[in-house]
């Protein structure tokens, strides 16, 4: 138990954050695409994420929650070190969260203002999250190289979100907006791929520890599937996006390929970091809460997590299909 409980929790945390990146990723992406659509398209774009965004954002609360519950010592260290980017991200999330409602409820003369807040909030949140991920991977050390690396990820993550957002619209939009979404997806494909490639090259350069973990035999052999699947997903996406007939017949393929890239990147990251929780400073066992507390919460996790996944899938099924105008009932 002493060994396994922290492992189970770090896996749960990783899963929550992965789900967050995919789910809030697409709705942040849609937010960043908002200025490129006309007024009625904006309403449809918001409508496509309206029923989901609240629950999507809850996954980051769960991720941070697990960090707090299971690794209280690391929770303090990580959030203290990331104080500024966390605060900036929160400003972004607050702005876009309220803009959802205020853009239609604050009166027509304020609509443009809240549309901008929605775009700005989404962009700022995505940039800050990328920056946080970058700082985390460099072990919260800072330094010129570390900062450059953080900046690189801060640009790559929004590119990924843009791709997720436009892929989401490929499944949800119709007509003119669908054409635009196709263009947006094509445009964001290359920056995302380039960013990911650069991050993959830079990571072992900024962290000797990660380089050692990857470039030794036989580990390298087992790890090859990770970049391979990423490359494959990228090629499938590019192929698919270039052929409009296929894209309309199987509109979910780019989104699925994007998710595959997210899953692979998470696996790679998890392998690089494990068993540390703060790289080079603290292992999951050193940071972990007491066994009694972890067991108490595990009961809840085991009962509720499947339920949460079940009704999340249910909600997505209820709102399945191309989006229509959003109205309250």
């Amino acid at each position, binding site marked *: 138990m002493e060994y396994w409980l922290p492992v189970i929790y770090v896996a749960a945390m990783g899963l929550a954050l992965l789900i967050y990146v995919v789910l809030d990723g697409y709705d942040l992406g849609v937010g960043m695409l908002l200025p490129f659509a006309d007024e009625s398209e904006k309403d449809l774009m918001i409508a496509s994420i309206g029923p989901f965004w609240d629950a999507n954002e809850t996954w980051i609360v769960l991720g941070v929650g697990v960090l707090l519950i299971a690794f209280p010592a690391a*929770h303090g260290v990580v959030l203290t070190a990331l104080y*500024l980017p966390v605060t900036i991200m929160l400003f972004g999330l607050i702005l876009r*969260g309220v803009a959802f409602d205020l853009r239609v409820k*604050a009166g027509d003369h304020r609509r443009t203002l809240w549309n901008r807040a929605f775009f700005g909030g989404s962009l700022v949140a995505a940039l800050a999250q990328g920056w946080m991920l970058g700082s985390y991977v460099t072990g919260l050390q800072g330094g010129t190289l570390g900062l450059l690396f953080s900046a690189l990820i801060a640009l790559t993550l929004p590119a990924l979100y843009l791709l997720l957002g436009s892929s989401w619209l490929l499944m949800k939009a119709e007509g003119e907006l669908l054409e635009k979404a196709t263009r947006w997806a094509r445009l964001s494909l290359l920056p995302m791929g380039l960013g990911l490639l650069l991050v993959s090259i830079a990571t072992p350069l900024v962290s000797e520890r990660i380089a050692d973990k990857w470039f030794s035999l036989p580990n390298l052999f087992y790890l090859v599937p990770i970049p391979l699947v990423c490359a494959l997903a990228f090629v499938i996406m590019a192929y698919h996006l270039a052929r409009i007939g296929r894209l309309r017949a199987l509109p979910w393929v780019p989104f699925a390929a994007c998710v595959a890239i997210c899953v692979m990147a998470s696996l790679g990251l998890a392998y690089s970091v494990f068993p540390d929780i703060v790289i080079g400073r603290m292992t999951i066992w050193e940071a972990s809460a007491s066994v009694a*507390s972890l067991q108490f*919460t595990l009961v809840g996790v085991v009962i509720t997590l499947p339920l949460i996944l079940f009704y999340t899938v249910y909600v997505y099924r209820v709102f399945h299909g191309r989006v229509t105008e959003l109205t309250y009932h």
Partner: protein
Amino acid sequence: MDIDPVVLARIQFAANISFHILFPAISIGLAWVLLYFRWQFTRTANRDWEHAYIFWVKVFALTFAMGVVSGITMSFQFGTNWPGFMERAGNIAGPLLGYEVLTAFFLEASFLGIMLFGKDRVSNRMHLLASFLVAFGTTLSAFWILSLNSWMQTPAGYRIEDGVFMVESWWAVIFNPSFPYRLVHMLLASLLTTAFLIAGLSALRMLRGLGGPGTRKVLKTGVLLAAVVAPLQILSGDLHGLNTLAHQPAKVAAMEAIWDTEAGAPFTLVALPDEASRSNRLAVEIPYAASLILTHRVDGEVQGLNDFAGQHPPVAPVFWAFRVMLGIGMAMLVSAWWAAAVLLRRREPGRPLLRVLSLMTFSGWLAVLAGWYVTEIGRQPWIVEGLLTVQDVAADHSSATLSGTLFGYVMLYVLLLAAYIGAVRNLSSKPAESQRTIAVGELAAVAGGA
């Protein structure tokens, strides 16, 4: 900048939770009221209830969103502002917050989507269920967070190993001595806040001639709810106070500004508590009343602040916040009973009554904030009563960082509060759906007659 960073961290956290609590205070109560509207419509098929539901669900969605985003901020600020608290009390705070996320947050957030936008996509029964689950989720969320807050006020069920809190009994942790009182007091506060919000906005609409028959129904729902809940709240507050006297006597001494321990202590109506001279200036007192209220005996002994020298909260803010809460509570009772007396006799509410109710629209907010200031400032200097001080657990951010982000937060919150109130007023300045329907109907009748 040479302001103490701990003070800045406290102001920042206080600003955030003060902003946050405004929205759950409405959404917990409003979720149940909406369920009532929804159920009334299903039961009676009267369109007025449906219009009431459609109008208030918009307010609910906006309120809920404000609560979510400021709540996410809180989940991060526990770590950014009080890292020591999580290191020392993480074994207790972590699981309680974890259960809140797992059992409440996902439930409310997921079914909110169906409640707001899914009526045409699911059966009526499923939609009712979704509305119920949202209401249930908001209440469950209050259950967990108030359990943690109460534990910080009246810790139980723990032992301390190397300065770290360990759990002895989860039952004792969750159902710690002040929790039942605090939970009931907060849930009733939320119902009262909601009751005055819906009654107040309905009164405003009627004053402006925008109300329809649905508005009248909502007004009556709000007034009757307030008339029933207000006295219950006073009773629960009294019991909560007795519980506080038993467990946190220094807080009660600050609430009443009693400096020396005495039997037959007077109740101080107003005064300027002065910590330098440790006495009250310009005090207006009712003899024996404090002893009577607190011990339910005329000659009961009440402990004074001087028994807790150096370890009691700042007196003036607690003393005044308590009086603001009491004053608003009394105003609520009087106005709710007045309005109920008029409406129950099926009389048309006059303009003075409608004006009073409209003035009271956000009175619940003030009472809730004042009440939280009493209990939270009243806990100082402790973060966990008697065991761990706030000073011990603060992060070592620089004053410059903290004041910079504090400035940002305050600007944002002022902007959002103005936007929220503006949006609610904007929504209420539109004519009622039912009124428009009637107008169209009349037009058709005229056209038919001609």
